[in-house]
Structures are given as structure tokens and as C-alpha cells.
């Protein structure tokens, strides 16, 4: 899981163009400036490319926080 978080924070920093972003399991779109429904699609594509996985449409809109996103990445990588 730590490895996923380490890689995921780099993805967040690239997508939201902010080297100082920190993410935690409880982080939500309200905590990160610019994370709206439009930039969320950028984030999903970036996560798919970084981890070599694919989300379903339903999954893309189902994550309530970063923790749920990480759990999903973890399941798909297994």
C-alpha cells in the first residue's frame, strides 16, 4: 500500500501541477484545489497510465476518498 501511495502522490502532483500536494486515505476532492468533476477525468487517466490498470465508468465516479481509490488500485494490481 505504501508503494501505491508513494506513486499516487506523484500522479496527483503532476495532474494538479502542485509539488506540495500530500494525500492521505481520508483526502477528498474538497481538500485539493482544482479537483473538480472535470479534472477528475484527468486524474483517472493518469492513474490508469501510471499503474497500468483500467477503471470501469462506474468505478471512476465511485471513489469517496483517496483511500477507496488506493484500495481499488490495489485490487486491480493483484
Amino acid at each position: 500500500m505504501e508503494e501505491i501511495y508513494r506513486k499516487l502522490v506523484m500522479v496527483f502532483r503532476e495532474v494538479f501541477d502542485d509539488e506540495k500536494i500530500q494525500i492521505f486515505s481520508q483526502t477528498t476532492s474538497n481538500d485539493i484545489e482544482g479537483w473538480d468533476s472535470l479534472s477528475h477525468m484527468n486524474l483517472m487517466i493518469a492513474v490508469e497510465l501510471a499503474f497500468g490498470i483500467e477503471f470501469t465508468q462506474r468505478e471512476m465516479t465511485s471513489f469517496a476518498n483517496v483511500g477507496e481509490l488506493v484500495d481499488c488500485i490495489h485490487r486491480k494490481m493483484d
Partner: protein
Amino acid sequence: MSDNHLVENIAYQCVTKHIHMGMGDQTAIRWLAASHEQQEISYLELEILSNQIANLLRSFGIGAGDCVSVFLPRTPELITSFLGILKVQAISCVLFSTFGENALLDRLLDNSARAIITKKSLLRRIQNIQYLLPKLEKILVIDLDEHIDNHVLSLPVLLNGTPDTFEYPARLSPDTPAFLQYTSGSTGKPKGVIHVHGGISAMLDSMTEVMDIQEGELYWCTADPAWITGLVYGVIAPLTLGVDQIQYGGAFHAVQWLGILQDYSVNVWYTAPTALRMLMQEDEQVLRAYDYSQLRKIFSVGEPLNAEIYHWGKRIFTQEINDTFFQSETGTIMIANRPGIPIRPGSMGKPLSYINAYILDESGQPVPAKQQGHLCFQAGWNSMFRGYLNKAEAYGEKFRNGYYFTGDLAWQDGDGYFWYVGRADDVINTAGHLVGPFEVESALLEIDEIMDVAVIGVPDPILHEKIIAFICLPNGQEWDRGLELKCRVNISNRVSTVAIPQEFHVVEKIPKNKSGKILRRVLKAWYQGKDPGDLSTMED
């Protein structure tokens, strides 16, 4: 100028006047943060905080005619900053917090802002372009604990000890600039639309005539104050009229919005067709799980309201949705469906009682009923914009023979109802945001792998128009998801998330005329499978 011709400063009308009338303790705004934490802000609190901002700006030597930008998401500080700027007779320019560096730079260069008020999470975007903005003296950060240097300053530290009283003339010339709203054009940089303090009477008259909000009713305008709607009908008019209002600091979220309508018993709701269309996508069981019995009126602005939404709204909310039409340039609602006028679903409604609207041809002659033409207004209404900043020629081009040409095409039926057709230019209206294709193209051309590009808007059932990008790649360059991501992220960070194309299409060549101008009508025809028409001007 004789005293009879003076008007009251917008900030005076919004807050100070209420204090003078002994209503300082009255709640001005019920603020609901994105976290759903609620805060009741009184007129006295708005007065004190805006007085402190005004004192601070004055201490920096900022005053009449200077521009101060506000680069904040929806927060109470945005409103107190706006009011404080107006109190020193400076010009406020509220900018969308979604703006990327290019969008920000274009606007700050144009308005020569001497100061900008922002927050930590947005600071980096300003700092990245700060070296290109020699006139920007102060960056005031609302959530910084201490100053970073002589330019990047903590607003809380500065305000600590700043006097909370501020003397300023209540009355000023009606032509005194009050605020700038930027709007995109089909070519070139965005234009700063200048509005003046004298425009407030139309702001109040239009809100009264259209919304007809009664004593004891709760009002909710969902628009961001970076939009003319959010500033005029979310801040200026409701504060001045003493309307009981709620403001929500979060973004669109179907369940949260429906919860606000129910839990706060909202009576009058001013929102946008895209939000309504997104709600339409929700399961009907979700929509019906909420109680809308207190909702008395719904208004919509930003894009045409198609008949389908009207009928859906009537079924779900048991209320008609009233379309309203205006632009950054008109300052206030010009045409609307409103109480007392039967709605024709899909129409814009009728002009307000003091507005003269016409459908004219290119030469400025009236066209017969039911025939498409340019939507125009007789110039001189009170809230009419007074110029495009630094672009006098562009301003002049909007007027012919005493009529303002909106740039929109419409037609009028035999009973006086207006019906929207579309833009007469290439500006894209996506989810109520006007996006200039030039801005998106510029951001894409910054990417090394992109050789040429053209951007158009095409009809979309949810967004009204969606953005389509046509891209030329150099030989050997493949289009893949990595490159798509690069394009999307660059547009987000340089322009805005709202400017991200919904589709990217790789083409061999962009159709242009012999002088190199992109033939967008040809691309639109290609995309829609229609006849592109005359191609004689197209380059070989």
C-alpha cells in the same frame, strides 16, 4: 457634477446603508461551506471586514481607478474583498479559481492589477507568472500565517490591528468603474468588460421584476461570483435588497444540492441548465427522495433552457423553470420568463419592462417575426457595460446605429417571445462558460508533440456545447492516452478545467483559408456529417 447626479457606491448600498439603518445585526448571508459547516454572516460583520480590507488597500496607496483582482473560490473573504475594493473606489476583478497560468496572466496583464487577494493553494499559479507582472505589487493571502516576503503577504497578519471603521464618500459619479468581468472572444485575448457603480439600479430592478422574492423567502443563487450572475444576483442585488439568502461554497454535487434545497427550505433557486441537465441524469428515485414543497420559483441562466428540462423540472419540482438571458456585457437580465407571463417552453421569454430588444439583420434593419437574426438591444440601459478595458475599438464594434449587438442569434415569435438560436461567432458556450477557441488552441500548441490544432464547439445534450479538438501530429508521432493526458493537463493548468475538450480527433490537416484563418465551419460540418458549403476560399 451636481449632487443630484451622483449615485450611491455599490458597497455603500450592499452593506454600509444597512448599518446606517440600524440593521447591522441582521443576517446578510447564511454561508454553507463545502464541508457543510454553517456560518451566519451579519451585515455588521461584512461591514467591519470590508472596512479593514479598504483601510489596508488605502495604506498601500491603492485607490480610484486602480484594479485589484480577487482570485479565490467561493468564500466569505471573496465577498468582503469585493466590498473593500469598492469602498476605496478601486476596480474589482474577481477571477475563477479554476483559471490556469495562461488565463490568469492574460487577465492580470490586461487589468494591470496592483494587488491580488488569493489563498495558499492558488498562490503557486500567481508566483509562476509573477515575474511577468511588474505592476503587481502585493499578493495578499487569506490563509497564510506569516509574510513570505515584501510582496507575498499574510492577509490575517496585515488585518490584525487594522482599524475596522472606514470613512468613504457614499455617493460618487454613476460612471465610476466598479468591476471588471472577463469574457472570451472568438479570436485574441479575453476582454475585460467594464461595469460602473451607476448600473446598480438595473441590478435591483431586474431582480425585483424577475425573481419577485417575498418577505421571509430564502434565496439560493448557485453561480460563482467570478461569473456576472454570481456577482450581480449572488452578491450585489440580494445584499442591497436585504434578501435572505444562502451561499454554498462547494461544487456541484447532485445529492448535496438536493439536500440543501430540502434541508434549508429554499424558496427561490437561481441555477444553470447544465446543473439541471446533470440532475436529470440521476435516478428518479434519488430525485424523489427529497422534499421540494418549499421551492416556489426556479430560474436558470447561462445557456438556453431546452423544453425537455422545463418539462422534467415541472414533473420533479412541481414548479416551472424560468429561463433568463443576459451577458457579461449587459450586466443584468434583459429577457426572461417570469411571474405573470405564461411560459412557452424552450423560449427565452420576453424583454424586461424597461428593455427594448430587437432582431436585426447585418445592416441593422429589423427582420420579420419568426426569422432568425442578431439579438440586439437599444443602447443606454442602466447596467450597460461602459467599455472593454484597453480595447476601445472592440467596444465600438458592438454598437451600430444605437443598438448593442449581442453576438447571439435569435428569433421572435408573433407574440413577442424570443427564441435563442446560437452564437454568431466561434465562442463556445460549454456548461455556461464562454470559452474562446484561441485560448485552448494556444495551450495545445505549447505541447511539443502537437503540430497544428483547431478547436470548435458542437451541440451537446448535457453541456449545451462540447469542445472538440482537431489535432495534427508530425510524421512518426502516435496519438496515445499519454499524449491525451498531456493535452488535458496542460489545458487544465494553463487555461481552465472547463476548457478541456470532450473529444480529440487526429487529422492530417486543419482546414484554413488562404490567409491562414481556421475554417471552423468546415470542421463543424465534417464533425456533424453536413455539407461544408463553399470551399473556394480554402487553401490548397
